[in-house]
């Protein structure tokens, strides 16, 4: 027996020693390892995370939910949107201009090719736009106001509109990538919106290398049109995007320098930035992050008492946003402007409207609005009842596990309770919250799908879109029907940015939004971005000489200029 015991100890010790020896050997070996051995040299590889929460499963650029970089690294749009200048910059297109009252002409760049060698032509652009005639394609409403797309010659496409929605069109131009006709036209209608599209063939700087359950690997293409046309060159030869099992894992990898850019929400990141851990963010101090979208408190306006504008206004006055910004987030987010417009759109905020009709945290004022509206505590339970005497008992739902939103919703509920509105925060799983939001079976929830774009039109479309359907998939979750406001939103879609009516229309919408309060803007969710400069430097930041493009790998941000980040970073010497 004694002999066996020794034997056991010996075995265990061997196992442990071999295992602990392995990584040490490995660390020493990897930088020098040849690229051909199926390994990615560290100084040529960019490690990213924060976009994918599961195994990569789709490379279909038509449908959301594709692997990180499918649109941006592989498929590219005609234009990019430049958030500093608030205008479109040509990308696959050389130029685009209004050539008539209802006619827009796009000229493609010369020498753009798909990764299979075939040239990208006007036929591909026409084909991509016409995919919208399939009703299941997300951009199919385009054809309600576009009447024709014609390929004039190999490099020219002419679009004819039945209803010239300038803002909406410009939004389409940079948000949707062009797909190769010779690959996609072989697919059936149902296939186009459901295919996984493995090994995608695109025009962008990267091509598919490999993927597995926890990663997506892209490899730089030999020739990318922008190298010649724009003198841009993406620096990393490989991009390895790590699918997260949790933010904690991402934080660990970032601290070890095994991750170069993490676009995860890392609670307490302010401490890491200030604590000399080699991790930096866009701003060196509060708010640390750029603002990516507006987090809104969304009341279900089809239900009493949320159907009453006075009640909604009282709710707006009850929320202590400062406490959310400082207590919950540790100042890595900013409080929202009462209009909810993101900081990039500051120039469109009508300051007089905002000061006259804006709201701020003021419990006394909330109580006064409630009292004026006839909301009184008739049964003496400490909470108000509706003017016709019905008890109010609301639930605020946010997805379980979204710790920041869970904390924020507790702050919101406490604020509402202090004003006398009975609200409880509840945390169902994220699927259940999605269902409730889509089907309109909720009292209050938080949503942040009003994100950064080329125009406040997308924001007001999110707020006011009509008609209200039984199921709302992407806009107007509060189910607020105001034909006058919707009329203005459509007018805004048709107004050019330099038209004086553009600003006045936005002003009118602000007034309606602030008096009617269909939803309550609370704070700007950050564009979470933490970088480690051990291997790659020259990250975008607020510093004087640093690039200003978005340091973010989230899908939909590549076309907002984040792709340029890849051309600006440099390998550390």
């Amino acid at each position: 027996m004694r002999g066996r015991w020794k034997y056991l100890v010996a075995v265990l010790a061997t196992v442990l020693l071999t295992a602990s020896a392995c990584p040490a050997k490995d660390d020493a070996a990897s930088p020098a390892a040849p690229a051909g051995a199926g390994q990615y040299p560290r100084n040529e590889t960019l490690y990213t995370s924060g976009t994918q929460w599961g195994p990569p499963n789709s490379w279909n650029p038509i449908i959301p939910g594709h692997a990180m970089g499918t649109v941006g690294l592989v498929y590219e749009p005609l234009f990019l949107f430049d958030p500093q200048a608030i205008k479109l910059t040509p990308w696959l297109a050389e130029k685009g201009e209004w050539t008539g009252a209802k006619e827009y002409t796009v000229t493609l760049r010369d020498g753009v090719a798909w990764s299979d060698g075939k040239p990208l032509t006007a036929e591909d652009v026409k084909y991509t736009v016409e995919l919208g005639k399939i009703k299941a394609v997300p951009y199919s409403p385009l054809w309600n106001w576009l009447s024709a797309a014609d390929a004039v010659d190999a490099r020219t496409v002419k679009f004819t509109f039945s209803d010239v929605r300038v803002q909406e069109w410009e939004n389409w131009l940079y948000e949707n990538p062009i797909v190769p006709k010779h690959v996609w036209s072989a697919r059936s209608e149902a296939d186009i919106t459901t295919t996984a599209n493995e090994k995608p063939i695109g025009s962008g700087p990267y091509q598919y290398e490999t993927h597995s359950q926890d990663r997506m690997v892209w490899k730089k293409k030999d020739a990318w049109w922008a190298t010649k046309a724009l003198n841009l060159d993406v620096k990393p030869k490989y991009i390895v995007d790590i699918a997260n099992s949790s933010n904690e894992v991402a934080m660990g990898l970032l601290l070890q320098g095994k991750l170069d850019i993490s676009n995860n929400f890392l609670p307490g990141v302010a401490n890491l930035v200030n604590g000399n851990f080699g991790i930096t963010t866009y701003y060196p101090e509060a708010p640390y992050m750029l603002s990516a979208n507006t987090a809104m408190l969304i009341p279900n306006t089809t239900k009493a008492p949320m159907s009453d504008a006075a009640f909604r206004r009282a709710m707006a006055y009850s929320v202590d946003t400062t406490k959310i910004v400082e207590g919950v987030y540790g100042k890595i987010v900013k409080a929202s402007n009462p209009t909810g417009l993101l900081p990039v759109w500051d120039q469109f905020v009508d300051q007089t409207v905002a000061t006259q009709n804006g709201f701020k945290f003021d419990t006394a004022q909330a109580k006064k609005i409630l009292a004026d509206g006839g909301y009184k505590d008739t049964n003496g339970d400490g909470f108000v009842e509706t003017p016709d005497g019905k008890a109010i008992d609301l639930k605020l739902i946010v997805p379980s596990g979204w710790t920041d939103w869970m904390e924020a919703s507790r702050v919101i509920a406490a604020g509402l309770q202090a004003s006398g509105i009975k609200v409880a925060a509840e945390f169902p799983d994220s699927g259940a919250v999605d269902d409730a939001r889509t089907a309109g079976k909720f009292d209050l929830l938080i949503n942040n799908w009003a994100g950064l774009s080329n125009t406040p039109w997308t924001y007001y479309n999110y707020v006011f879109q009509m008609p209200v359907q039984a199921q709302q998939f992407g806009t107007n979750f509060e189910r607020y029907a105001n034909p006058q406001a919707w009329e203005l939103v459509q007018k805004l879609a048709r107004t050019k940015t330099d038209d004086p009516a553009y600003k006045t229309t936005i002003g009118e919408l602000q007034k309606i939004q602030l008096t009617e309060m269909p939803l309550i803007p609370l704070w700007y969710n950050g564009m979470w971005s933490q970088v480690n400069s051990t291997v790659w430097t020259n990250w975008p930041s607020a510093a004087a000489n640093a690039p200003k493009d978005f340091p973010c790998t989230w899908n939909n941000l590549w076309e907002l200029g984040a792709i340029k980040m890849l051309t600006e970073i440099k390998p550390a010497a």
Partner: protein
Amino acid sequence: MRRYFGRKLFIYALTFIVAVTINWMVPRFMPGDPVLRMLTRTSVSNPDAIAPMRAYYEKVFGLDVPLWKQYLNYWAELFQGNMGVSVWLFPTPVTDVITGAVPYTLALLLPSILLSWWAGNKVGALAARRKWLDNSVLPASYVLTATPYMWLGILLAWSLGLVAGLFPIAGGYSFDRQPTWSAAFLADLLAHWILPFLSLFLVAFGGWAIGMRNLIIYELEADYASYLEALGAPRRLVRRYAFRNALLPQLTGLALQLGVIVAGALVTEIVFGYPGLGSLILNAITNQDYFLLQGVFLFIVLGVLIANFAIDVVYVLVDPRTRIGMQGGSA
């Protein structure tokens, strides 16, 4: 013998049918609608497209037929190795998703279950007889067995991974590698495997060691042990008898513990970002992915049943009384 295994097999078959049925039922009676989830995710914005897309997805998922027929289809498909299409990872087939993850989970589970049982029993038996071992192993085992898998996992990742830098803290293999049949890759796999394995091993080890220690003490005080000693049998022989007797309840315990260890492995995988079934289950639940959930649970149910059956067989081999009883029964 045949009757014994016949009866066992019948019970296992029955358990399997019931488990598969429950497995089919539970997701369907969970609140939520996977097709609505698909529509939300693919952002169908054109109201005219909602009805046809709903019909399309219902057909793909086989939800367009009455419930009883769905149930029969489910069995029919199951025997062809087809478990449907994942909702969360649409359009990947569930079988593909699971076969990608199962090797990792098995590689964690089998060694940790077997080694912890073996090592736990040995160490427990030794502890029962050596005061110094008893004073050190026993308290350590109590702490270990009471530690949640997740907590131990986080501690290990932090201490051996982040602070000491000995082991990688995430992934199934290094993020700069592609799977190849090379020694370097296998060493890399092993390095990523060791921490999740350790956290499973240590917790289970503690439990087995305590159990064995108590059983040995009990056995050494049994009448047969005193009788043997009175006859002048060597202590070694007495101990060997005690050990073999004490092993039997531990075997039964192993069968009972399997489910718990599997659950522990799932949590551990999430802590270490290990690409096994753990994170799949978590996401399948939050995304109302009936089919993936069914597939993963089916795998677990099958695994636990097979393991239990193996333990039944082993029981017959190690316990002569079962054999004798069976022979008596069949005579």
